[in-house]
Each structure stands twice: as C-alpha cells, then as structure tokens.
C-alpha cells in the first residue's frame, strides 16, 4: 500500500473505501486459496506419493536391472528389446489379454445390455430379477472363481455331471488350454451386474415419446431398438465398453486363482505367490499375471517396470479416449434425474 502523501490527501475520502474493499477482497481470495489447499491436501499428498512418484519411477526403473537387493543398474533399452524379441511369454500374455478384450468384453457388454432390455420391458418382479442379476457382481472374485472351478471341474462338477447325463461331450474347462479362457469368460458374464444396472438406468431414461412416435411411424420392436434405444443411450454404451476394456487390461485375480486352484497341486505355504501361473499351458497367463510373475515371483523389478510402462501406454491411450469424450458422459448438466 504505497501511496504518495499527495494522492492520499487528494483522494482520501474517495479511495479509502475502495482500498479497504480491495484489501478485503485480496484477503478473501487468500483465505479461499487456503481453504482449497486444506481440502485438497489429502489428495495432493496421496497423488504425489502413490501415483505421480511411482509413475515416474516406473519409467526410470524400466531402463534398469534391479533385484531390490543391489541398487538399480542402467541398461538402456535392453528390457524392452528382451520383452518383444526374446521372451516368448510376452506375446502369449499379450495374445491372451487381447483374446479377453476382443471376445469376453464385447460379450459382457452385449449380455448386460440384453438383460437390461429384458428387465426394462418386464412388468412383474423387476426388483427380484435385478437383485439376482446384480448380486454375483459383488461376490468376492476369489470366492466366485473357486465356485466356478468347482462347478466346472471334470471329475465331480455338477455341470459335467449334467452334460454327461444328457450325453453331451463335456470339456475339461479349467484343465484344458482351449477351454480355460471360455470358462473364465462364463465367469465374467456371471459378474456383469454393474454394467447391467447402468444400462438399465439408461434404458429406463429414454423418453417415452420417442418410442411412441416411432411406433406411430410403424417401427417394430427391433427397429425401435435399432433407431431409438441404441442411439439414445450410445454414450452409456461407449462408457461401458471402454470401462470393460480397462478392466480387461487389468484382469488378474480370476486368472490367478483359477490357475492355482485348477491345478490343485499341494503347494507349500511359502510358495503361495508363485504357484502355477498361467495353468494350463500358459492359457491363463494374462498380461498382468506376467507382470506379477516377473516383479513379485522373480523380483526382476526393472523388467517388470518395462512391462508396466507398456501397459501404462496402452491404458493411457484408452483412457484418453474416455476423458476426451468425458464431456458427453461425465457432466449431468445440473440434474441427476
């Protein structure tokens, strides 16, 4: 507040209130900033320590050889070269993950959409049906996987028992490299409730008038679906699809548990972390499982970081697509319903 005495004298009466106001305003702005900082502080600390820092570190470690015991040793691009040129498991893992994203994910979205459509049309028992379809989605993945490994086990499992009675040749499911992924797909369809509930809300939100005018124009149920329902909820379909892809990229628990329980060999307690990854014959060796193997079974932290950086790049590309489209689906425009 440096004002010449003359100015102060000349404009004392006029300026003083304005000055006060400006000072008050600045004070308020500072208090506001302090408030924002206070409220955001948990996230600022958490983001830096558990997100920003490890992201940067991942990139650095990916250029090193590091076994946790001796300090990281710079080896340039060798991890990446080994990954793509020499390690045959990398391509197996990429293929398995692509299989899941290319086949299981679209099936999940279609299946969830189909059930949501049927639920939206149902007149009776909607609540009961919705509960039945939603519940498996919140069942603990480990428990759900164990259940499926049991139900589909070739020796005493009920599914093969029933198939046997019907005279249908029964697959070996989790014991057969060709059937392990389809079995996991069935498990993922069983847990599709989250997307289903989102679809149901979207379908019920489609304005009635649209259907009525389409019906007046002579559109049958299929064409109403094609030209009214699907276009109206398309942002939600996009959201569900990309979200499922992202979950597909991190698919780990079910594959890990199915492999270790499926093989069913007695393992030592100390061995729990390493047993049977990818069983049978690497058919359930998804990309995150491979990352786990290198990082936390073999403790090749540098190599695992290189795998993580590739996963990061791919997920980031997918994420960017969502965020760039987020205006279409994140903002409610004021009202929830």
């Amino acid at each position, binding site marked *: 507040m440096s004002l010449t005495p003359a100015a102060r004298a000349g404009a004392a009466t006029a300026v003083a209130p304005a000055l006060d106001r400006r000072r008050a305003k600045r004070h308020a702005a500072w208090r506001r900033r302090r408030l924002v900082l206070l409220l955001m502080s948990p996230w600022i600390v958490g983001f830096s320590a558990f997100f920003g820092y490890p992201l940067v570190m991942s990139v650095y470690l990916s250029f090193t050889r590091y076994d946790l015991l001796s300090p990281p040793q710079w080896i340039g691009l060798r991890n990446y070269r080994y990954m793509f040129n020499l390690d045959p498991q990398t391509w197996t893992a990429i293929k398995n993950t692509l299989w899941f994203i290319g086949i299981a994910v679209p099936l999940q979205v279609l299946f969830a959409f189909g059930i949501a459509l049927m639920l939206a049309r149902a007149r009776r028992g909607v609540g009961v049906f919705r509960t039945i379809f939603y519940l498996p989605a919140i069942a603990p993945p480990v428990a759900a996987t164990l259940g499926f490994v049991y139900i589909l086990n070739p020796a005493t499992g009920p599914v093969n028992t029933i198939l046997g009675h019907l005279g249908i040749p029964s697959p070996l499911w989790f014991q057969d490299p060709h059937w392990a992924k389809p079995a996991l797909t069935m498990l993922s369809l069983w847990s599709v409730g989250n997307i289903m509930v989102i679809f149901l809300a979207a379908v019920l*939100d489609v304005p009635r008038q649209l259907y009525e005018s389409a019906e007046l124009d002579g559109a049958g149920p299929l064409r109403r679906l094609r030209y009214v329902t699907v276009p109206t909820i398309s942002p939600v379909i996009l959201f569900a699809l990309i979200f499922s892809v992202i979950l597909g990229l991190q698919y780990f628990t079910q594959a890990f548990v199915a492999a270790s329980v499926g093989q069913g060999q007695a393992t030592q307690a100390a061995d*729990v972390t390493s047993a049977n990854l990818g069983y049978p014959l690497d058919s359930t060796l998804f990309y995150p499982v491979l990352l786990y193997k290198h990082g936390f079974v073999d403790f090749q932290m540098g190599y695992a970081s290189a795998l993580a950086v590739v996963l990061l790049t791919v997920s980031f590309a997918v994420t960017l697509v969502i965020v760039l489209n987020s205006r279409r689906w994140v903002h409610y425009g004021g009202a929830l319903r």
Partner: protein
Amino acid sequence: MSGVGITTELVRRRAPAPVRRRKFLIAVANHSLLIAAAIAFLAPIVFIALTALMTNNQALSSRLWPHPFAWHNFVTVFTTAPMWRWILNTLQYSVLATIGVVLSSVPVAYALARLRWRGRQVAFMIVLIALMLPPQVTVVPLYVMWSKLHLVGTLWPVIIPNWLGDAFSIFLLRQFFVTIPEEYLDAARVDGCGELRLLGTVVLRLAKPAIAAVALFSFLYTFNDFFLPLLYVGTQPHRWVLSIGLSEFRSLHQVEWNLTMAATLLMMAPVIVLFFLAQRAFVEGVTLTGVKG
C-alpha cells in the same frame, strides 16, 4: 411373472385384440427369457451351497443332492483353517481403509465440485486418469518404496494410501456434490456459515446417501481385494486376509470340495447380507458412477 396381472393391465389399455394378443405373447416370451437367465445366474450359488452341505464321500461322488445334510461343515471350516485370523486381518484392512477413504475423499470431492479455483479442471482430469489406469502400472515402485520402509509383510501398504484420497470415491462423491442445488448452500452462506462449517453440516447431511455408497463400495472393494494383499502379505500366512486364505484353502489343507465350498459360501455371505441391508445405496451408487446420456 403372473399372467393375470399382465392381462388386466392390457385390458385397461383397450388396444385392439390382435395387438393385445401380440403384446401378451411378447411379454410372456420376455418373462420366460428372464426366468431362464435368472435360473442360470442362481445355479452356481445353488450348486455351491449344495456341495457345502455334503459329506466328504458325497463330495467325491458326482451326486448333486446332499444326503444327509452335513451342517457341521461350516464348523469344521473354522477348525481346519485359521479362519478367525483371516477374518480379523480382513476387518483390519476393510474397516481402517473405509474410514480413511470417507474422511479423506469428502473434502477433496467438495473442493472439486463446489469451489471455484484455477486448476480445478486439471485436478479432476487427473483424478479420472488415476481412476482408469490399472493398479499394476504403479505397483513396482510402490513395492520398492514400502520395502524400503520395512512395511512389506504387513497390511499397512494397502491401508495407508486409502487415508490420502481414493480416486473412485472422489469421483463418485464429486458427481453427487455437483447435483446439490446452489440455493441450499447460498442460504447457509447468507446466514454467515463458513465454507468448512457448510461442508461439515449442510453438505454432509445432504450427501448422506452418496457417502453411504462410497463407504459400502470401499468396504466391499477391500473385503474382496486380492491383488494388493497378495503382494504385500502373500508370504506371511499369519497376515493373510480371507481372499488369500480362501484361494489357498484347498491345496493347503488337503480337503475335499465340500469344505472348500463351505468356506466359499462363508466368504460370500457377508457381502450378500450387506447387499440386502443396503440395497438402495448400492444400486443408487452404481447408477451414479454410470453416466447420463
């Protein structure tokens, strides 16, 4: 489900007979499909429950119906495996993490939704990105960090980050906070209520359903979590949580499927009970994450 209800509703509308018949048939077909799908969804649970009630010998055969019912399996599970220890560890993780998530995410979400400041949009974008990137991307350096702090082998590495904001909860709460009408807040502001007190009173009271949903999801997520506990306590059997214990149950204790399924059912039970106690919070919460077209 009952044809009577459907017809009366149709009669009330008084559509021409052929249309009415067609609509009725479509409704019947729709409900039949729904019932078939519901049976398929229930079948796994039914088979798990039936096997959980079988004796050892029955579980070794390919019989589908238990005879006699072996209710004691649920007791035997507790004597075969250190279930109580696993449960205590799980509760330690879930309860501490859930309290932390709620306490740390509410203020962040409020600042993102309701205060105007430079960088807010960027911060929200970063939250979205953090929400969508797989946890495997940051897991290696974090493991290195926790091992330098000598905390690998304990549950702290999976608990502590939850006290510093969780991207999913921030996102969900923010989505709710933006829907609170500005007039409510302004009314309180005019009465001389400071921003912090506003958050502590008016906003918290209005946001109760969203906070309940966040707490539920957080509890559920940590209760079900397998990957992170596996990393940090996988080699320490006395620190195992239920999900790890269950995944090793069969091979470790050399038991038959009946006991394994009993343990599986025991782990599913709390989740199912929780769902029925808080069904509305669940469904509203999920709908909140999904977006409006």
